[in-house]
Structure formats: C-alpha cells, structure tokens
C-alpha cells in the first residue's frame, strides 16, 4: 500500500456510532503515578515479554513513516528505546517517557548501539515541553492505551507536529467483534497492571481526538493491533 493511501478502509467506515464523540474510551481509568509505577516494575523484563510479540508492528510503523534524511521524529513513550536502532541514522530522533527506569534502559541501549542521532528526555506525554510544529513525524508506539487521557496526548502530538507532518499511533484497540470486545472489556482492569487497557475504543478515540486517518492497518500476529497514520493539516 502506498504511503498515505487515501482509500477508505473498513476500519474508518466504522467511525460511526452516534455517541462516538462522547462515550468513554475504556472501562478502566488510570493516573500517571499508577502508570509510572507499573512501568518501573516492567522495565527489566519489558523487552523479553513485549519485544518479539509486537515487533512486526514496530517495523511496519517505521516503514510507513517514509522518513527522509534530516527529518525530526518525536517518539512519545520511548520506553526502553526498543525502536531506537530501527530509525535511519540520518534522521533526528527525540524520545520522551515518564518512567525514569525505562529511560535508563533506553539510555544504555542508545549508548551500547552508538546511536548518535537519538536523544532522550523525561516528560509527560500529555504535557509535551516542545514548541508548536517542532517535528516532522510524531509517533506513539503502544502508548495510547496506557496513558490516563489518550485524547490529551494525541492533541499534544498534533500540536508539536508541523503542518503537513505525520502523526502515527500504533496500538491495540477493542475488537469490533462483540464477543471479543466483551472479553477485552472484562479483562481491561487486569491488563492495566501489565501496562495497557485492553478495551480502548478506536472510533471514539478518533472522534474525540478529531483525527482523520489516511490509513488504518492491522498489524502483528494475531492482527489485533492497529497502525493509524494521520496527516497534520
């Protein structure tokens, strides 16, 4: 599929529903302190557990970005820096995270791999400390179902992205299948303890964040995750 194919995907057609603009995105609510605590504990084994399982999606996201030499990429929720070496060396990558344990892992990795094009900062994804339009590409991999307010995060992502730039979200969202969806809702209060809500509502998320994706692709095996690519207007 070409970059930014404007075809209507099956998923975008699902962005209907009369209450998408107002309904809750998940049955589970979390606070920043809780999330930071979970990821302090996850830091030492995140790569073993979530590394190979979610890798295909990471590769596809980088490919979909179509990064050009010299472009500025912001990775929101850089975690252990598992993506850091996947970026071309001729772009400038800025990674932010709220967990200092995860950032410490990222720092070690960046140093070990000699990645001179990657810099790391500790900050809140919902309160980015960059000026408007600072980046060409703003990417949140497996983050949006972790944060207390996904809509606030994606609004900040759009703010720091330049007009014409790309805002990319890679995440698991609640299945359109009613049986799977009810399971995902039921287990969401449990999965949040290993770092994510399993029932994030994609149509409601898109409506409330006022995102108009140019493509939504299913990724990973099983194909339960979505790669959502948007162009900043």
């Amino acid at each position, binding site marked *: 599929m070409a970059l930014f194919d404007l075809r209507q995907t099956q998923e975008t057609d699902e962005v209907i529903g009369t209450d998408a603009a107002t309904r809750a995105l998940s049955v589970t609510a979390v606070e920043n302190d809780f999330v930071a605590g979970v990821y302090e504990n996850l830091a030492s084994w995140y790569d073993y557990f979530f590394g190979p399982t979610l890798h295909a999606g990471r590769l596809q996201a980088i490919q979909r970005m179509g990064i050009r030499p010299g472009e500025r990429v912001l990775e929101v929720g850089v975690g252990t820096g598992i993506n850091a070496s996947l970026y071309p060396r001729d772009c*400038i990558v*800025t990674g932010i995270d709220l967990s*200092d344990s995860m*950032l*410490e892992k990222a*720092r070690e990795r960046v140093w070990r791999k000699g990645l*001179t*094009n*990657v*810099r*790391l*900062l*500790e*900050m*809140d994804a919902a*309160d980015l*400390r*960059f*000026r408007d339009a*600072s980046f060409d590409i703003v990417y949140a991999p497996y983050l949006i179902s972790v944060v207390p307010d996904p809509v606030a995060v994606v609004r900040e992502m759009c703010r720091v992205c330049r007009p014409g730039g790309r805002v990319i979200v890679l995440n698991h969202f609640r299945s359109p299948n009613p049986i799977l969806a009810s399971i995902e809702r039921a287990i969401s209060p449990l999965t949040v303890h290993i770092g994510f809500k399993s029932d994030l509502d994609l149509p409601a998320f898109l409506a409330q964040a006022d995102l108009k994706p140019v493509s939504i692709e299913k990724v990973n095996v099983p194909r339960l995750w979505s790669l959502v690519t948007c162009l900043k207007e």
Partner: protein
Amino acid sequence: MPVDPELLEILACPNCKTPVTLVKNNTALKCATCKRVYPIKDDIPVMLIDEATIED
C-alpha cells in the same frame, strides 16, 4: 547527544512555556522567567515541574 542547540531551540519550560538555557556546566536547564532549574540526569533532561528547583 543529550542537549544540542537544535533541541534547546524547541524546548520550553514546563511551567511558563518560555525557552530554557543550559546552566551549571551543562548539567541543568534553566528558565529565565520562573527561575526553575530542570536537572539533566545521566544525559536525560527531566522536564517535570515536580523535579525542578527554583534558583535565583
């Protein structure tokens, strides 16, 4: 590359959203407006108000 000139150019103080500058032999970032100093720990700037100190 912890804090290069390009990063300084786009960074803003979490409190007043104004530019920050390198201080203390490049080990911290300071906002001239609110005087908050944000530490750089292990090459990672910590841009959180709770972690900042106020220094004149």
